[in-house]
């Protein structure tokens, strides 16, 4: 996983902006989103991997 603090695993953030509705947020990724991100080829930087 991205990082493991011992009590709670954390994931990188994601910014989402929907132009049609104006919806706009930056939040922590869900585990499902993070898994999809890894599958698409993105890699965590070396010093944050477990």
């Amino acid at each position, binding site marked *: 996983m991205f990082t493991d603090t011992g009590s709670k695993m954390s994931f990188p953030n994601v910014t989402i902006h929907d132009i049609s509705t104006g919806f706009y947020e930056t939040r922590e990724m869900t585990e499902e989103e993070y898994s999809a991100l890894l599958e698409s080829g993105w890699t965590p*930087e070396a010093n944050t991997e477990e």
Partner: protein
Amino acid sequence: MANVKISALPAATSVAAADVLPIVQSSTTKKATFTDVAGAVGGVRVYASAAARNSAITSPTEGMCVYLTDEDTLQIYTGSAWVAIGATKTVSGVSEGLVWISNTTIGSAVSSVTVSNCFSSTYDKYKIVWSVNSQSATANAEIYFNNGASQYFNSGFWQAPTSSTVTNYSTGATATSIGIWGVWQGGIAAAHGITEIHSPYLAERTYCVSHGSAPGYMWWSQTQLADTSQNTGFVFRPSTGTITGGTISVYGYRK
């Protein structure tokens, strides 16, 4: 000659040049008073079209101002032509060219930025201008389209700003479905780039041409998405690590 209030003019009859208050003053035109200008707010003559305007005003003088309802334009006569003032989405000759669609601010420590519903049938060609304030690692800048499942082809070249050596690269069809179109160097200052995109929303191949720079790299690249799916948005991200701050702006080229 006495001043004439535009608002006092009849609405549906022909009007002579001498009866229309020029907005631009010259030594030979009438002087506008505050009352005239205030009256002009509701008194600019309105015509259904340029043809109707030309029929009503056969000898315009410099500074005349009219409004055309078919184009929704406020126009002023320059002495040789009627020229639209300001811009609307439908004005020919005024807002043609690049039209701003959206700005997205990149959040803190994000691994991706999703911009949805920025592509539509309104435009066929787009420009994305992005800047990243900082990054956690040396990475490629990547973009992929929301319905582009596969078949990205990438090639280009890059160069260090302190070197004359140019390095070519080509990814072929990337297995990860990601369009690679830039490189930035992690940990130092900002990076920025521009991508021109042709037909992301059309059911045909999508073509991209990019260039950009960061403190350690300058790059130029092209990407083809052989997948002909229609795309309504894209994801911008580093190939590794996270990015913080900056802006992604999307513009459309008016057809």
